[in-house]
């Protein structure tokens, strides 16, 4: 579909407001494999990893909070996807992927701190019961469209994956940025995309940013404010959201961040991001609050709400990430510590597309990554692509039907 095809096809009068919530660190299989939702491509007990002579099958019983934070830096994900001790070699293709090293990596990596007790290493292979542990998400997944082919944009951590959502590139960043690197950005007024961000493309009047106002105050610092041109002061407190929607809301795109909980002690507790060290409940309630606000506003019939996870957080997933289109945006090699070519997607993550204009209970197998949000916005609102990644990304507009449903729940959750 070319840049203006959707607009020409008449979707822009239907969908006038796109909302995106990006949560933290869960793989698709971890969250939905055991959901019982028909037709999903998901892990079974036949999927396993071997570590230190023992076999660990995928199964149920994921703890409410992980005992330790699973690794998810670039070097961790290489091992998770390509097997114990696998390493990426600069200048060579990404090693063959067989999703066999999740347990080995969880048992040994120290990138997020101390590894778990040996008896806990199989937690990385366990899924949750979404129906009971994240009921709002489960409700939306069954009432709207659950995507089981959505991948993080690169096999790496939070920051570069979030940057891909905002700009179809991480400007070469393949790791969590260091203090020295962030000092370098200061002279540029923040993180810079060679081809600009979606916020640059839309212009100030056409987007709004929010962050959840509940939870530990230590975790109410929005990552999006690291980008050039975005200030902490541009990110609204989510307590205003419901009233804003009913007060002449004109923003085409709204991006919402959760709160991150206790980031000082790396426990992430009392946040709403669904970080593995925290739990699912507060994030689930955040999803329900946002849905309720949009659903009961005058914008509902013109809205599209996408719920995403930035990356898999080290959790097992059974689907092998495929080849990806590099951004080809002229980014300098400065931030690319590994020499990665950005030509492989990251691990699969959950994604739910919510709108009265999508079918009830559909499972969508299309391959997406975070730049699919950009592709959707660009084709909906007639914007040019930012990089080759979003230019070639699948959008979610094919999910839009010709019928505005009248059976969507008015409230979910408690």
């Amino acid at each position, binding site marked *: 579909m070319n840049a203006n095809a959707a607009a020409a096809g008449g979707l822009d009068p239907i969908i006038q407001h796109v909302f995106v919530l990006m949560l933290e660190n869960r793989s698709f299989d971890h969250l939905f494999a055991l959901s019982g939702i028909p037709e999903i491509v998901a892990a079974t007990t036949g999927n396993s990893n071997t570590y230190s002579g023992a076999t660990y099958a995928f199964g149920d019983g994921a703890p409410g909070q992980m005992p330790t934070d699973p690794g998810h830096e670039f070097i961790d994900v290489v091992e998770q996807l390509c097997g114990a001790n696998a390493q990426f070699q600069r200048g060579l293709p990404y090693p063959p992927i067989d999703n066999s090293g999740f347990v080995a990596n969880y048992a040994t990596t120290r990138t997020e701190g101390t590894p778990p007790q040996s008896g806990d290493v199989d937690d990385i292979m366990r899924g949750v019961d979404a129906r009971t542990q994240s009921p709002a998400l489960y409700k939306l997944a069954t009432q709207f469209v659950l995507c089981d082919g959505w991948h993080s944009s690169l096999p790496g951590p939070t920051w570069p994956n979030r940057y891909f959502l905002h700009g179809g590139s991480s400007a070469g960043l393949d790791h969590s940025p260091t203090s020295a690197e962030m000092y370098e950005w*200061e002279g540029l007024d923040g993180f810079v995309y060679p081809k600009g961000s979606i916020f640059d493309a839309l212009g100030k009047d056409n987007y709004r940013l929010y962050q959840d106002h509940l939870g530990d*105050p230590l975790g109410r610092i929005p990552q999006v404010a690291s980008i050039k041109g975005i200030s902490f*002061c541009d990110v*609204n*407190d989510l307590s*205003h959201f419901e009233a804003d929607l009913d*007060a002449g809301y004109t923003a085409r795109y709204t991006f919402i961040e959760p709160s991150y909980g206790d*980031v*000082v002690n790396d426990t992430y507790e009392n946040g709403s991001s669904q970080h593995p060290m925290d739990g699912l409940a507060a994030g689930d309630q955040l999803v329900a609050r946002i849905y309720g606000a949009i659903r009961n506003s005058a914008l509902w019939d013109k809205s599209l709400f996408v719920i995403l996870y930035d990356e898999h957080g080290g959790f097992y997933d059974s689907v092998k990430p495929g080849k990806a289109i590099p951004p080809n945006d002229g980014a300098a090699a400065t931030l690319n510590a590994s020499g990665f070519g950005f030509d492989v997607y990251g691990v699969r993550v959950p994604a739910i597309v919510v709108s009265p204009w999508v079918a009830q209970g559909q499972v969508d197998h299309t391959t997406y990554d975070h730049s699919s949000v950009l592709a959707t916005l660009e084709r909906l609102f007639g914007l040019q692509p930012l990089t080759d990644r979003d230019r070639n990304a699948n959008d979610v507009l094919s999910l839009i039907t010709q019928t505005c449903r009248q059976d969507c729940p008015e409230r979910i959750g408690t």
Partner: protein
Amino acid sequence: MTRTTPAHERDHEPVPDPSTLMGLLHVLRKTHMELVGKDAAHQRFSQVSTRGDARQYIEEVMPNLVKEREKRRQHRHGDGK
């Protein structure tokens, strides 16, 4: 700021680099510079080396940023919301 987190036994540990904490501290520093200028913001940020320092920094800087954010919001919307 509706609640503060109690002091923790890890307060003496250095802020890991890189880490989520370090990244988000730099986000605060970036906006703090807007409010107080580069030199003052740098001087304050340079005093952060441990997790305890980071907690103190967030609890000191955030209320000012939140106040400024609400001020700008009122200016933008002109509705006091």
